[in-house]
């Protein structure tokens, strides 16, 4: 089938402002939007710029705004996207070129929540630490995050306040706060209780809709606030 792809292009080296370009591509209903972007880049205009790697929704490189919603280009098929498809960069981060955004601030926020297990005491028998399946399940959902930024860049609070850590960072804080093996819970809760932390969330649920992994982000945020309450952190 013939598909019209409208892409919001912007190369600050050459363009004064972002503008829309239209491309005609031929596609199968089972093609991914990423396949169409490749068609343009590989055979029509090599300057089109975007990130991608695994092409099947596990590496988190290619989240972008497609038909008005944040999605992974490699997970959205033409049969669902239709024959008129619009693609633009995620919102709330500086556009570096076309569909590629500057993610430095995103990674800095990820780092801010201490996204690593802290526990240097090892079991005496030299074996694994024990953890019950039920305790393991508490962070199952949030350990699935692929850091694609689809949630954070769909959050209206983040759009208006760039200091807000944003849903992705909270998801990754939750993953460790909920892990019975971790010993830095208080420190992490303190970071979450900061002015730019978890209280900024207005439960708009955009993040939940945007997450390609189907993580229940708003619930994770709520659980972090409950933990802050339990720990009596102000």
């Amino acid at each position, binding site marked *: 089938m013939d598909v019209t792809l409208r892409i919001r292009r912007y190369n600050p*080296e050459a363009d004064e402002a972002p503008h829309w370009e239209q491309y005609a591509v031929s596609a199968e209903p089972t093609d991914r939007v990423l396949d169409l972007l490749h068609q343009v880049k590989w055979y029509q205009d090599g300057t089109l710029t975007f990130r991608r790697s695994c092409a*099947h*929704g596990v590496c988190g490189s290619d989240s972008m705004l497609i038909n008005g919603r944040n999605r992974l280009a490699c997970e959205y098929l033409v049969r669902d996207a239709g024959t008129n498809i619009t693609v633009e960069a995620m919102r709330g981060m500086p556009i570096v070129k076309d569909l590629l955004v500057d993610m430095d601030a995103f990674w800095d926020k990820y780092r801010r929540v201490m*996204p690593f297990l802290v526990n240097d005491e090892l079991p005496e028998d*030299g074996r*694994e630490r024990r953890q019950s399946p039920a305790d393991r399940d508490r962070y199952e959902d949030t350990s699935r995050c692929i850091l694609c930024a689809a949630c954070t860049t769909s959050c209206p609070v983040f759009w208006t306040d760039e200091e807000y850590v944003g849903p992705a960072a909270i998801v990754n804080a939750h993953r460790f706060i909920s892990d019975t093996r971790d010993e830095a819970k208080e420190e992490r809760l303190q970071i979450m209780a900061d002015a730019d932390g978890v209280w900024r969330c207005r439960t708009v649920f955009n993040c939940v809709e945007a997450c390609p992994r189907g993580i229940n982000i708003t619930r994770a945020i709520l659980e972090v606030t409950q933990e802050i309450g339990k720990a009596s952190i102000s």
Partner: protein
Amino acid sequence: MTLLAPTPRGSIPPSRVVELDAVVVGAGGAGLYAALELKQALGPEARIGVISKLHPTRSHTGAAQGGVCAALGNTEEDHWEWHWFDTVKGGDYLVDQDAAEVMCHDAVDTIINLEHLGLPFDRTDDGLINQRRFGGHTRNYGEGPVRRSCFAADRTGHAILQTLYQQCIRREVVFFDEYQVLDLAMPDGPTGRVSGVIALRIATSELFSFRAKAVLFATGGYGKVFKVTSNAHTLTGDGMAIPYRRGLPLEDMEFFQFHPTGMYKLGFLLSEAMRGEGGILLNDAGERFMERYAPTMKDLASRDVVSRSIYLEIAEGRGIGGKDYVHLDVRHLGAEVLNTKLPDMSGFIRTYFGLEPLTDLVPIQPTAHYAMGGIPTDIDGRVLADERNTVVPGLYAAGEVACVSVHGANRLGTNSLLDILVFGRRAGLKMAEELAAAPAPAVDIEAEEAVQASVGALLRTTEGERPAVIRTELQEVMFAKCGVYRTESLLVECRDEVASLRERARNLLVDDHGCRYNTDLGDALELGFLLDCAEATVASALARTETRGGHAREDHPERDDVNWLKHTLASRDPATGEVSMAYKPVTITKFEPRARTY
């Protein structure tokens, strides 16, 4: 132009020359584990840098699904010696047994260490790391399947990648995200000391010279040389092609694994864990055909055996509707197993095929998955320059880019993750040990100027062929003529076609002449790497006149231990461009080669 915020993450400011103690190229499991061990061994002051052409969490380790094997014995009796035997047999006896012994023995300690680092393994009711079955892994030297694979649902690689990246952040490893490595600094030639790498900062197209006393290549594989592959777009063999261009050899390149259950036409994987949990393969008649080919292990025979069986079914007209695929049947596994143990796989089937795994059969075909071959190394990651095992000082390799050789002619499922972990870790420790005595890094001005010139030339092109056109032809010819089944005449054609594509690639068209995130330039550079890997692969496949593991020659259908119980080393003379083969013996310490049945 305004530069972006400084890209090098950590304490080192951006500069055209970066001085480090050690530099790791590639931020998958092998590179990250090495960096972590380096930092832990040398202390917080050590300047350990990781260069990646991606953001580290995009690395393809994250796509690994089913698990990583270690004989923990958590759910039934198991011994690392059994794992060792399975690895040797799975590799069709081309495995260096001393290396495989190290891997299977170290596996237990390594998995425990990963748990200590925070990896979210699935647990048994007792709280231990849970384990499940996987292809080719047996109890008591082949008696039947054993539960050996440790897993985090069906995204074990994702869990490994995240955990190691997180711990590297904790230990303040310095990351250089989105830098494309283009050459080694080796001012004294291919056996002289390596003293750094030259890389392109993708954000700005600036060339950086990273100077270090030790360099680890952990850049992964080159599956993108084939038309149907499970590999990411970024797996273009960069780390193999660079030393090959310098005249260093690549080992056992003819052995490429085709994974049986690629999603039809798309190529990416449905984990072997689907069969580990009880899924079976069916032909057009609805017959469970693996019972004929592998009566004991059936659908869980090793991957080369299953992939070839699927090809034979298709060749004999028993593909679905006579086409080039068969069915994977997981309907009987039930909603509980599909949703909790295989949730991502079930999601793939729904998203990309619009099928429901509980009620529908899933179309699958073998897909190019894994390079058993690569840069020859010893068990500590040190790169070897020739068949006499001469060490290249300062250069290390680990993971899929390397050939230790623990996989021999065919890698067992889960052993890729184990390889990156055990040998990434060992390489890091060896680098830490050898750094103290290493001299200050020498500068390779010649290499820096050559890279500058070649990148500059590409940026100035105004006519030529698009990289994608040549790449697509390369992928098609490699899949058709150097794929699951090979013959001399097909390989000769393939060799000549690859040579002509290499010639055509001297005139590439790069549309994008800008400096900012020039991924068009990146495509052109990556095509060059792919072509070099293809050349070495075809030369090695042509040389080996036998069938063994992942290398099936229709014109030489039997394994030939008399003549071919040896490794191939393909190298190209940088001066003449001639490709030549050398050989070195397989190390056999315990398991004498036997006929291989499953």
